[in-house]
């Protein structure tokens, strides 16, 4: 009887360990999918130049990052989609 009990306790703890392990593994994977990835561009790197369009109300205009070189600091604020939050 006692032996059976300890055997089943052992099995239960194995099962618990398996459940905990798979939970942790799942979490690690979920974190990998989240957009918390390390940045390709780091502080101190040269920001790649770009030329992009915007609509100013009358026509399409081009803006390049290099337009501001030596003149102004530039905040480049990437956002997910128009009409979503902030």
């Amino acid at each position: 009887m006692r032996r059976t009990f300890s055997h089943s306790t052992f099995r239960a703890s194995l099962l618990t360990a398996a459940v905990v392990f798979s939970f942790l593994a799942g979490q690690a994977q979920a974190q990998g999918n989240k957009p918390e990835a390390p940045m390709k561009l780091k502080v101190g790197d040269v920001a790649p130049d770009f030329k992009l369009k915007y609509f100013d109300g009358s026509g399409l205009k081009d803006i390049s990052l290099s337009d501001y070189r030596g003149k102004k600091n530039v905040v480049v604020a990437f956002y997910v989609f128009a009409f979503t939050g902030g």
Partner: protein
Amino acid sequence: MKAFQQNLQKLEAADTQVLGVSMDSPFANKAFADSIGVTFPLLSDWGGDVTREYGVYVDQYKAARRINFLIGKDGRILEEQLDREAIDPTKIVDACERRKVNR
């Protein structure tokens, strides 16, 4: 984008141009800018080439992460704000004002 608009005077006083970037069309971005009162340009990275080059494209969304870069006059990155942190641009506004004082 609203938070940058609220700080626009401070940023302009510190010699800083604000540019929003998303993968929307220029026209959607203009409508968005008008609806939230943003007066700085919202640029259209249609197709996402620049978003990928900056390493902020997320496959899962087929769109950009919310990331702010502050780029100095020499073209180098001075500050980065990532994801949730990027909603409040205080760190960038402070950095601009510090540089203005130190100049």
